[in-house]
């Protein structure tokens, strides 16, 4: 049966009619093949306008409808609804955008009218080939997986759980809290981070809806929005937290010693070590990577920790196991790494013990840190302290072109702490731009300057030793003079970098990375926590550098995005998906290699490509890749597109 097409041209008040001769377009449309009727009206989207269409469908037996009006984004759902009411499949509608693509951007009436005719002709040519489609929904597993037990992960998990859904919080390490656990005080409010963090961790641990999996790693993710299947590899808790009294005998007995990364390398620890105080339970944990017994079954003459433990709390024989989780949404909160200052050798980190990073400073300043909160190097109080900004940020030589967003305030806070503890200390900060942009930040910057912190504009070029002093050399760009400032403590304001394992996380979940190497959000302005993968969201510094407050806001934002499918219990899936003509499919797999959403697989049995319509976004990349056009996207088939082109030529 030949299609019977109705064409409806909208004036959009004067928006279209002022520039396009709608009468002429109607006249033209009537003469196009398969067009049964063509009408124009002031407002097609209005009730009477829609009435014209529904009446014609009934009276004239239209099979397809073309509406020439605004962008389909605006009113496609309106008109789909209208024709559905009249008994047509809603997908038998084609829109010609003669407003945004024509009347709004052209001035010449004759040319605009000609273009409107072309657009209508093209839409009519396509319309005849449109096929009915069905809208589909799939159910949602009402649970979420949060990857990463740092601040972002904790907050996101809490929101999900508080909304009444199961949250699985998977943390790679032995304790919760992430980077925040290492920090001393907040800026600009100068509160103890551990107080804030302990509170949060406690509510996580107490929450009936949250399942915390520490020492665990996501191994594999299958499925799609609403229906993910996740394999998590769990390392066993080799120390029984119920028995461990944190007496420390085990650590004393352990022959392995390594730098303590929690203290940013300022101290060393053993393969069995106490968890940081912010984690709720005072207990010891075993570092599987470091423990020679776990790794290679070697510990002479036998695992001593096991032997010395008075409570028999240690069991090194436990095996790793894999757990399968079913979740509806995934929040990635894997955090960021700190910049390795060895990338800036001229600053002398690793050469001079009194050149430390801002993270090391945090540990020094922490009462639970290696010095019990005394900011001292080799037991000596610093009298001259220099802070160096932008170490590993805004720097082509390190490859990190971006600003790390927090270092200016971290340095300001640390400078304040120095002044607080040692009012006589001479504190200088070298900077190029002071970026104190957050709420209360500029005010804090004002405050520390008034406390006597001297800001000197100029990046530091070199740090070297002269006698028993460290010399910091820079140009004072406000005086245009090179300067040398002596110091007995130099603090490098190190930036945030993407974690080295970002690629693995990305490929695990099918995410992409942005130019700076962090995980990419789906739109930098309006979709800052969504990703290209439906049902997977980003929280915190895995997406880019952030301070605590921005991290928390973003974590809650990610929770908000994840809550939509969980609350609804159903997700709508794309109707116009791709489909395979099995007669033509040679099973070469070019399309599957191109598909960004993992929607295509090669069936071993039939040796043809199979489409998973839930994953398919209808983007058409497969169609472009297939040499024989055996895979096509509904509503964008070659027939439809070629017809459109032919109508224009």
């Amino acid at each position: 049966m030949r299609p019977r097409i109705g064409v409806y041209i909208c004036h959009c008040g004067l928006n279209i009619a002022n520039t396009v001769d709608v009468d002429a377009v109607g006249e033209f449309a009537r003469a196009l093949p398969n067009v049964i009727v063509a009408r124009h009206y002031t407002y097609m989207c209005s009730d009477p306008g829609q009435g014209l269409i529904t009446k014609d469908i009934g009276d004239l037996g239209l099979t397809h409808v073309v509406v020439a009006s605004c962008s389909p984004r605006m009113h496609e759902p309106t008109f789909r609804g209208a024709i559905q009411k009249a008994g047509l499949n809603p997908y038998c509608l084609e829109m010609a955008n003669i407003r945004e693509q024509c009347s709004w951007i052209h001035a010449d009436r004759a040319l605009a009218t000609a273009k409107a005719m072309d657009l209508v002709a093209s839409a009519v040519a396509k319309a005849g080939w449109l096929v009915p489609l069905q809208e589909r929904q799939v159910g949602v597993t009402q649970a979420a997986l949060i990857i990463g037990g740092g601040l972002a992960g904790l907050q996101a998990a809490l929101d999900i759980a508080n909304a009444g859904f199961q949250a699985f919080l998977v943390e790679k390490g032995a304790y919760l809290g992430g980077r925040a656990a290492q920090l001393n005080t907040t800026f600009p409010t100068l509160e103890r981070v551990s107080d804030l963090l302990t509170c949060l961790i406690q509510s996580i641990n107490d929450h009936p809806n949250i399942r915390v999996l520490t020492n665990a790693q996501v191994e594999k993710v299958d499925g799609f929005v609403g229906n993910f299947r996740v394999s998590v590899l769990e390392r066993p808790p080799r120390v029984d937290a119920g028995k461990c009294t944190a007496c420390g005998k085990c650590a004393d007995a352990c022959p392995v010693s390594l730098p303590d990364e929690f203290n940013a390398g300022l101290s060393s620890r053993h393969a069995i070590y106490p968890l940081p105080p912010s984690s709720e339970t005072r207990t010891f944990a075993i570092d599987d990577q470091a423990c020679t017994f776990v790794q290679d079954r070697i510990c002479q003459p036998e695992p001593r920790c096991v032997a010395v433990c008075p409570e028999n709390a240690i069991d090194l024989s436990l095996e790793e196991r894999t757990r399968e989780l079913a979740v509806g949404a995934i929040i990635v909160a894997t955090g960021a790494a700190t910049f390795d200052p060895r990338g800036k050798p001229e600053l002398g980190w690793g050469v001079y013990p009194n050149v430390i990073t801002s993270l090391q400073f945090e540990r020094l300043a922490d009462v639970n840190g290696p010095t019990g909160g005394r900011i001292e190097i080799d037991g000596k109080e610093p009298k001259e302290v220099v802070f160096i900004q932008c170490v590993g940020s805004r720097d082509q030589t390190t490859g990190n072109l971006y600003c790390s967003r927090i270092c200016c305030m971290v340095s300001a806070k640390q400078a304040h702490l120095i002044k607080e503890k040692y009012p006589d200390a001479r504190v200088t900060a070298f900077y190029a731009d002071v970026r104190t942009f957050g709420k209360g930040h500029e005010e804090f910057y004002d405050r520390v300057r008034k406390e006597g912190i001297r800001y000197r504009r100029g990046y530091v070029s070199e740090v070297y030793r002269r006698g028993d002093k460290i010399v910091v050399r820079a140009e004072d760009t406000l005086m245009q003079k090179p300067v040398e400032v002596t110091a007995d403590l130099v603090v490098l304001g190190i930036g945030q970098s993407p974690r080295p394992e970002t690629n693995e996380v990305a490929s695990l979940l099918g995410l992409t990375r942005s130019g700076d190497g962090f995980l990419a959000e789906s739109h930098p302005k309006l979709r800052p926590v969504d990703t290209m993968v439906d049902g997977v969201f980003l929280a915190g510094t895995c997406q880019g550098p952030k301070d605590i407050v921005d991290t928390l806001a973003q974590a809650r934002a990610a929770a908000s995005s994840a809550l939509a499918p969980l609350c609804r219990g159903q997700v709508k899936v794309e109707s116009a998906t791709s489909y395979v003509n099995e007669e033509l499919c040679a099973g070469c797999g070019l399309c599957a290699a191109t598909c960004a959403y993992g929607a295509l697989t090669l069936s071993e049995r039939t040796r043809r490509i199979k489409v998973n319509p839930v994953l398919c976004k209808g983007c058409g990349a497969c169609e472009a890749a297939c040499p024989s056009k055996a895979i096509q996207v509904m509503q964008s088939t070659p027939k439809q597109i070629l017809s459109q082109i032919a109508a224009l030529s």
Partner: protein
Amino acid sequence: MIDTEALVEQFGLTACIQCGKCTGGCPVSPKSALNPRALVYQMLRGEGFELVSREELWDCTTCSTCGLRCPKGVKAVDLIIGLRGQWIESGKIPTTLRAPLTATLNQGNPLVLPREDRSLWADGLNVKNVAEGADVAMFVCCENAYDPRVQPMPRALVNLLRAAQVDFGTLGLEEQCCGSEIRRLGESGLYEYLRDDNLDKFRQAGIQKMVTTSPHCMNVFKNEYAGAGFTVEHYTQMLARLIAEGKIKFSKRMETVVTYQDPCFLGKQNGIYDEPRAVLKSIPGVKFVDMDRSRERSVCCEGGGGRMWLEGTNNKVRLANDRVAQALETGAKVLATACPFCFLTLSDAVIATGHENDLRVMDILQIANEAL
């Protein structure tokens, strides 16, 4: 060598973010080595500072634009005054300054004229002494009292106040320098002496309300004499009020175009912009036009901060010359002002630029008096 740390603390220089808004706004910085921002920075660097060869410190007109524009509340002008103070303390007082300072101590005025000549300006006017009892004390200012070019101003004020039937008197021979410029020259010891002495005299005379002819005097009384115990106004404020109340009525017309130079001590530093303009606009026939750079955006005439007596390092064209040119651009025939320093610098500039026939510099007092 100067103790920069002390200065940093004294003047709160740590608030500075080195944005340069002070130097950019400084009216003399383009022609002088004076750079308030760099001065502050040298203090902050704390590597010591030598006053020797820092002649440009004397270029500051203390117009205070630097401090008023500062987004962080730093008053660079106060630092400059402080540095001048250290300079003076070191005893190396610039020669041109010695005479005015000594005269102020001895004769109560920096013009090196006898104390007993202070009332010559009021010859024949029969102005009573405020000690005899008066509602308002009129403070004349050394410049107005001694300099014949500006002596007509206080006379005009006397006339106007009488027309408005205001009960007023002066301190007569008891009046001496207010100390405003002395303070700004850095001679804080002399300033403090003058302040205390004046306050004693004011108390003895029982002064409750004061009107000044110079904005500089008004500013120092209002903002720097701690615990003065009397209210002070500039004459433009008083006149504007008297006119508004109908107590002063003008009978003559002045068919001319008038523009107005905002004195820094009246405008920028004390926010008095509208009253002088109100006075001028109330005079029949006057067509008032503002210069492009007026009110908050006005430019210093370069008369303040002791610049009346000093040459400093910049002998280039005075700022007043620019102001005269800008006044001419407006088509004005009269360049009004309300400050003796402005009057003098602008008058000199009119002569120096050869515009005696095109533009007349007048104090608002003169204009108002002529229109009575």
